């Protein structure tokens, strides 16, 4: 029960710090997607990379206590649903996928109408989805080894 999982204490502590930075960077990349290179998808993958680091450093058991796979599913679906909802909101303005928000001042964070929102939805979707796959894969053991 007390079997040590994951890597050494140094790695774990560094990983704790770095994971936070990576996650913040992923969110930053996604939110500034309409201004600079990047976008929701790249941000989401970076977010998932933070989860990968966590799984590698702490082992799958400890990570799964922190983040449950079912939560990943739910957030994954919620992100997708959010993006679809943005699309359907277009009907308020008259048509599917209508970007009816004002474009705003090009170059500022709040510009591009719904583009930042879409990026956010994709960030949540991709990040949660890929993190979930990693958790599932890290927990997967060949059944023959259990015998």
């Amino acid at each position, binding site marked *: 029960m007390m079997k040590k999982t994951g890597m050494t204490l140094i790695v774990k502590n560094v990983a704790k710090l770095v994971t936070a930075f990576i996650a913040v960077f992923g969110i930053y*990349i996604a939110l500034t*997607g*309409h*201004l*600079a*290179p*990047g*976008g929701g*998808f*790249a941000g989401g*993958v*970076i977010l*998932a*990379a933070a989860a*990968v680091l966590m799984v590698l450093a702490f082992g799958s058991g400890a990570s799964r206590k922190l983040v449950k796979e079912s939560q990943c*599913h739910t957030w*994954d*679906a919620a*992100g*997708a649903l959010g*993006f*679809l909802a943005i*699309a359907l909101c277009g009907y308020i303005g008259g048509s*599917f*996928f209508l*970007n009816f928000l*004002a*474009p*705003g*001042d*090009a*170059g500022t964070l709040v*510009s*591009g*109408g*719904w*583009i930042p929102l*879409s*990026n956010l*939805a*994709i960030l949540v*979707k*991709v990040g949660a*989805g*890929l993190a*979930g*796959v*990693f958790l*599932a*894969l*890290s927990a*997967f053991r*060949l*059944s023959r080894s259990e015998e």
Partner: protein
Amino acid sequence: MGVEVLVLILIVFMFIGSLIATESGDLLSSVIAIGAVGFGLSIIDLLLRAPDLAITQVVVEVIALVLLIRLVLTRREESTDTPRDALRIGVVLLAAGVLLVAIFLAVGGVETGAGMPTFGEPVLAGSRTENGVPPGVAMDYLERSTEETGARNAVMGVLLDYRAYDTLGEATVIFVSILGAYALLRKVGRRKEVSQ
């Protein structure tokens, strides 16, 4: 000129990397070689002025490599080198030869205007105007994206506004494959007991 030379060198590098990945006897080296190919592609993206792609390619490459290494490490015993099947390879080479000729015709027909546009002179730049092919939609995106969508990054403008519906498809693709991965990771797909 400089960019083209660099791109050519990088493509040669990618080709060699792919060849190593294909022919290497050790699976882990294969996977790492293909990772190098991916990073080569992301540098090409950078050289060809596609920073969005470069970033995405790098992060995706990292994730794909982790996945592939996870796959290779699954294996317990060293797998034997795969035997070659002469007939199969012969067929492939033949088909490849025929295709190469066709491709050469297509790319080489530049002078007559019947082939692909010359590298570096896309339809966007008006290379086909005299044949009656106008610059296409790309010009409109560049001219109007900032004004109409408010996104300075024209790629994001295209991706999330002009062609947002594609992006819905893209989000769905990743959703589907993740869901599919979960579905295939189930230990027990079918309950064994007979109904009734």
